[in-house]
């Protein structure tokens, strides 16, 4: 069943069109990779799906589980199960990670009409997940991402993904700034979350990440459109021949 349907999406930022009619369908349980050069619109797509202000959708639509995502505020999208793992997770001094996680989780549950998670249950869950991601407990007592290394910030994103249990995870350049070990830990965390009901959209420049998170479908983006889709072998092909051929095609 289609989880995410992006149809002929046109998006402008400050009078300049970035996406020129992008179409993409992601079904439950699938892992999609979106690859493309800088400026092809990959991050714009992820921001528009998450609801970041500053983007003007001039045409097309985005459906999530059949509902019009563009009509929803970012927090409603989160509560419905959309999760964007940020390329550059922000630092929030003065808000401990633990407080942030609990506040966010309960806000999502409240929006869905569910009861708040009891503190012991919450703590147990956080401990389990953070242990599997190799996140030390004392990190959770510090300000959100404050003083975290690049790898720790990305693992913190995966921790949130595990806690919030979204049905669609968009990983925006998860590999940027990570060394190979940090990448492996984060990727293992993501793979552990993959399930028949949960889809992943992995946005990346490089094929390297896809050695760890193996996609069902690979899309190539260029100049604001998907110009080619294929199986995981498409990523390898790109690694060898580069993006130039597609820039001409676009």
């Amino acid at each position, binding site marked *: 069943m289609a989880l995410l349907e992006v149809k002929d999406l046109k998006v402008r930022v400050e009078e300049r069109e970035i996406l020129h009619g992008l179409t993409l369908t992601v079904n439950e349980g699938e892992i999609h990779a979106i690859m493309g050069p800088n400026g092809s619109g990959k991050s714009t797509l992820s921001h528009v799906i*998450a*609801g*970041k*202000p500053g983007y003007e959708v001039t045409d097309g639509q985005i459906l999530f589980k059949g509902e019009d995502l563009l009509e929803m*505020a*970012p*927090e409603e*999208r*989160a*509560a419905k199960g959309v999760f*964007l793992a*940020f390329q550059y*997770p*922000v630092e*929030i*001094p*003065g*808000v401990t990670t633990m*407080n*942030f996680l609990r*506040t*966010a*989780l309960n*806000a*999502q549950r409240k*929006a869905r009409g569910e009861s708040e998670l009891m503190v012991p249950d919450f703590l147990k869950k956080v401990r389990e997940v953070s242990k599997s991601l190799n996140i030390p407990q004392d990190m959770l007592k510090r*300000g959100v991402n404050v003083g975290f290394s690049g790898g720790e910030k990305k693992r913190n994103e995966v921790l*949130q993904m595990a806690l*919030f249990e979204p049905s669609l995870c968009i990983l925006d350049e998860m590999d940027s700034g990570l060394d190979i070990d940090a990448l492996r830990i984060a990727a293992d965390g993501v793979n552990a979350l993959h399930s028949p009901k949960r889809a992943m959209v992995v946005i990346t420049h490089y094929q390297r990440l896809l050695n760890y998170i193996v996609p069902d479908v690979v899309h190539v983006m260029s100049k604001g459109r998907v110009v080619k889709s294929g199986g995981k072998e498409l990523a390898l092909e790109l690694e060898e021949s580069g993006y130039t051929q597609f820039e001409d095609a676009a």
Partner: protein
Amino acid sequence: MNVAVAKTGSGRAVSDLFASAEGRLPGSPSVIASRREAFETYERLGLPHRRIEEWKYTDLRALVGEVLPLAAAPDAAALKRAADAVKAHAIAGARKLVLVDGVFAADLSDVRALTAEAGFRTLRETLEKDAGLLTTASTDAVIALNAAMATDGVVLSIADGAQLSAPIQIIHIATAASASAFTRSQVVIGKGARATLVESFVAAGAKAYQVNDAVIVTVGDDADVAHIRLMDDAPDAVNVTSHFVTVGANVKLNFFNMTTGAAVSRLQGLITLAGEGSELSANGVNLLQKTEHGDTTLVVDHAVPNCVSREVFRAVIDDRAHSVFQGRIIVRPDAQKTDGKMMTRALLLSDEAEADNKPELEIFADDVSCGHGATSGALDDSLLFYLKARGLPEKQAQALLIQAFVGEAVEQIADDGLREHVIGIAERWLERRS
């Protein structure tokens, strides 16, 4: 030149203020005479206005206009309302001293438990003897008015070496609408003593009232003191408070003020570091909304060498509110090796919110380390979006970031219970935001 100003317009009413109250003001005939003298000083000066440099940003003549008549002594119904307010605002375990409309309410206070650990009298009692507590070395009109009109207050003495087992909480409760309460208190903390003093200002149903409070604190050598003031008066009230604090040697003094109420407020504090080796941490938070005007003015006077002072001030300003922070650090010629720093930040939640920061360093010694910084700005959009993308609605995301913003000042309160109490008041302020 002020004579003419004071007499024009409200000149008549000013005199009536004292005449109508005189019969109720406690004190011996000599005390009444010095009150009259103080009132004449006030009358000559009139309410402070923008042409007086210290009051440049808080023009009481424009903001307040007139001083309301003295509140009547609370009756049984008022005391009943006050009792409910005490329940709502008391800190668990604290020894309470309650002033209702400027009059000490023994029945609502924990005098017996307190006097087991500290000396206590009311201002009213001390004024039967002399006017000593009504004198302060100040030429400020609101302080002169306070000396003239103060009806009551608490006079505390904490013995040398005393280690108080619980905080002392002075609770000022307003039950009378459209009236003024004038209070003056003194706290003397002995050498090597350890004490926590909390002052709370709240309303019990009263509206549009005025508070003028003065507090004189003396901290003995080697003492360890936390002094917390929480001004949560009614949104249409006026609160003008003056603090005079003198600190001995090797003292640790942690002062914190939070403003969450009153249409117009000013806390003006003078902290004199008069003994070497002391550490002062003086912090504050102004949380203002609607058209509130909140002014925190602190003067830290390094009179002797080798003291450290740290000031962290945060203002959160919504709607058309106006926050003022004036911080002055004075380093006297002898006060070598002074280490004084002050950091003030304002968070503007609306385009019409206003923050005035006026840091001043007056340094007369040559071997010192002093500095100040001031910033103001809006909430960071990228942080707001991150929180919203994680499911927090706009208001809740803002609230979390506001709490984080004031956190640096609030975290200076060492006691967990007190800090939670303060955070609770800040949370209620956040809930009041429209």
